């Protein structure tokens, strides 16, 4: 028994020592802060089955924003500086957990505002609760149209959030219809007629695929949709099937995220399906993280991808700084959801400063509605909200409390190992950097 106790305690001790990296609390000398700080909850996925990599980056960005704001003496309300304190909650990518964490944010941590959210399912499940409790919320990554549309319309049997007053939920990520529109417009401009969409069977892939499919078909293209399970490694049998089909597809569109999308794109390139002379490769926006992309998809040159957020050549100083910091931390280009999460904290802080309160939800919402800020992703403003409640005919419902300008562009690599900061922007035309709408494999602009 003694030996066992010894072994156990040694192992426990070693484990403790291994686990000692501590988070340092920033204490800045030059600012005088009030006793009570402003608490902002960051709801991100940090364990499986959630998208852990996304959650880690978002959590980093949210904390970074708080540090930057505090370094600039926090939020000034009535002439008193309040520091921002971040409370991170792990949604695990599950609606049930998300709800529980939001409940904890509200009742236990008593947060003044909430940001984050990666999975749409979590966003949809939590937004009603946030609204009811009057917590100003700026979501930074869920794409489902209904996240913002539910401000003014009934969804899933639930009444709209602002039916009886203030709607507290904003979004600075794009609605998936905004993204799908750009990709399809670009491809239709190029004159594609035969499209293969490979989509993951999740709450991201399926609605996005359905949306793009409808748009392609409306434009007269024929579409084959193939659903795959996240986590699949070997796509060769499925790709052989595409390769064997009588009419070669004009484009293969990948609506799969994370490491699964890298595997798929790489195998597609190795088999010579796309990018090739006949077939355009449109991969997922995760390709923007170029270090990771080239490591995992060495044959992925000439693949196009959609990019959300300001194009690299127009990066503001904030964006450049944020990117440098991100590169130092994770050795990669900053992804859009990290930028959006960073900006969301600033938007909240700015709203509180202008509202002159950190706890009056309605006043903060009114202030956020009239946001006009230049941050890492560009200029932020909200077109429709209580300040401008009537959506004109033809404006989709998701424009409510939605940042209208997440710049969605198509980008394309044209050199092996190229940084995404140097990749060509090819669509829309106003943003084109290399004067070309599509760079054919083997050529250079």
């Amino acid at each position: 028994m003694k030996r066992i106790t010894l072994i156990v305690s040694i192992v426990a001790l070693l484990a403790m020592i291994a686990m000692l990296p501590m988070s340092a609390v920033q204490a800045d000398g030059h600012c005088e802060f009030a006793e009570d700080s402003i608490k902002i909850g960051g709801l991100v996925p940090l364990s499986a089955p959630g998208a852990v990599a996304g959650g880690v980056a978002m959590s980093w960005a949210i904390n970074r924003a708080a540090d930057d704001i505090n370094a600039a003496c926090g939020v000034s309300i009535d002439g008193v500086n309040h520091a921002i304190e971040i409370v991170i909650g792990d949604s695990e990518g599950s609606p049930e957990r998300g709800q529980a964490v939001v409940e904890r944010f509200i009742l236990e941590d008593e947060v003044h505002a909430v940001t984050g959210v990666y999975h749409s399912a979590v966003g949809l499940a939590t937004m009603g609760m946030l609204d009811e409790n009057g917590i100003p919320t700026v979501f930074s990554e869920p794409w489902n149209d209904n996240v913002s549309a539910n401000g003014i319309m009934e969804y899933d049997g639930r009444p709209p959030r602002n039916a009886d007053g203030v709607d507290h939920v904003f979004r600075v990520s794009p609605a998936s219809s905004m993204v799908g529109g750009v990709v399809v417009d670009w491809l239709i401009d190029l004159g594609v007629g035969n499209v293969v969409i490979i989509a993951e069977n999740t709450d991201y892939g399926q609605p996005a695929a359905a949306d793009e499919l409808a748009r392609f078909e409306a434009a007269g293209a024929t579409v084959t949709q193939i659903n795959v399970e996240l986590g699949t490694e070997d796509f060769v049998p499925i790709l052989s099937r595409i390769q064997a089909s009588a009419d070669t597809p004009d484009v293969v569109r990948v609506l799969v995220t994370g490491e699964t999308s890298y595997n798929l794109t790489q195998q597609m390139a190795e088999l010579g399906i796309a990018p090739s002379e006949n077939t355009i490769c449109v991969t997922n926006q995760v390709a923007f993280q170029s270090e990771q992309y080239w490591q995992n998809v060495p044959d992925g040159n000439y693949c196009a991808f959609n990019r959300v957020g300001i194009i690299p050549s127009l990066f503001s100083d904030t964006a450049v700084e944020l990117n440098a910091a991100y590169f130092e931390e994770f050795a990669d280009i900053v992804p859009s959801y990290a930028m959006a999460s960073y900006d969301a904290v600033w938007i909240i802080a700015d709203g509180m400063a202008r509202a002159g309160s950190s706890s009056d939800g309605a006043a903060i919402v009114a202030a956020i509605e009239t946001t006009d800020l230049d941050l890492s992703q560009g200029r932020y403003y909200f077109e429709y909200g209580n300040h401008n409640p009537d959506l004109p005919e033809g404006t989709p419902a998701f424009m409510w409390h939605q940042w209208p300008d997440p710049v969605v562009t198509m980008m394309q690599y044209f050199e092996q190992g190229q940084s995404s900061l140097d990749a060509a922007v090819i669509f829309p035309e106003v943003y084109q950097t290399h004067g070309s709408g599509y760079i054919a494999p083997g050529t250079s602009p």
Partner: protein
Amino acid sequence: MVVFRRFESAIDQGIGRRKLGYLVIVLVVLFFLWFPNDTSQSNYTKTVFISGFFYAIMSSSWALLAGIAGQFSFGHMAFMGIGAYAAGLIARDGITFALLGVSISPESISAFGSIIIGTIAAGAVGLVIGWLLLRLRAAYLALFTIAFSELFRIMMLTEYDYTGGSNGLSLRPLLQIADVDAARQVEYYLMFGLLVVCLLALYWVANSPIGLFLRAMREDEDAASALGVNVVRYKILVFVFTSMIVGFAGAIFYSDVGSERIIPEQLEILQMSLIIAYAVIGGMESLIGAAAGAFISRYLLEAMRQVVITLPFGMTTYDGSDAFVWEPGFWRFALFGVVMVFTLRYMRNGLLYPIITWFSGRDIVMKETVSRRESDDNHAARIEADDE
């Protein structure tokens, strides 16, 4: 130590350990009944408790199946999912028997009715699977149930049009209480009541003659069969019974009691492995041990998200604060794995075993298994026999 001995003998002469044990159980129950009335506790803690109760049901029923009956199933989560999905599908779509011209509309089924149908569905599938499993032992059984539960999960994920895919499936809410605090209160008592009822049912089975037969079969199936135990019947019975319990618990938990919808990710092997780990840490052969193991582990995993260690004697850390803030992240799961492995190796009957033994005053769990080993001269031969 001396103090403890003295305390021990005082107890033995006075109230008796057993009675004290019952007293402790009553106190624990009273604590849980009182808990929601503690206004200083937030709804979040109640939420953690509610899911703790749910996993306690999962773990303790698994302990009956694996620990007492020796059927090492990895399909427990899948049966829970069958209960929840069946309840949700019935409440949403109803059933149409085109051939019989009979149609049950969703409107005619109450939330509780759909839960009952879900339970029956879980039991029915349990019956078929339990029957198929008769031929399989230990590792083969584990592998087969892994395959079954993975197949089920992939189907739920892929048949998007019917099951909602990864968006999950909403079940019909069981309770319709507008006030959040009151609703949480009722959900708390509902789930706790369910745990108590399930534990009583499980104990009733474990302590009935069936429980004895199951233990006998676990130790030596052929011998039990030779002594006249109907092996087939009891094996299937226990499988159906536990499947129905978890199907019932799952259907209730996901009827907006603990969660508003069930998602296929809940059915991953990883989630199943957590249930097994809880049961192992609490004690696989003790139902209450497994339940307590699940509850405590979940609570600790939750509490360990952020550990604040306040330094004594006015010491400060290098950046001037008086406390270490440690966010273990994934390390807490790694630690959990270490605890599980060492528990298995050195405290086979779970970390709560010494406490349970002390209260019961004898080695309830060990005796049955050890006696068999003592009577068995050729241990190596038995290893061979077990493996086939």
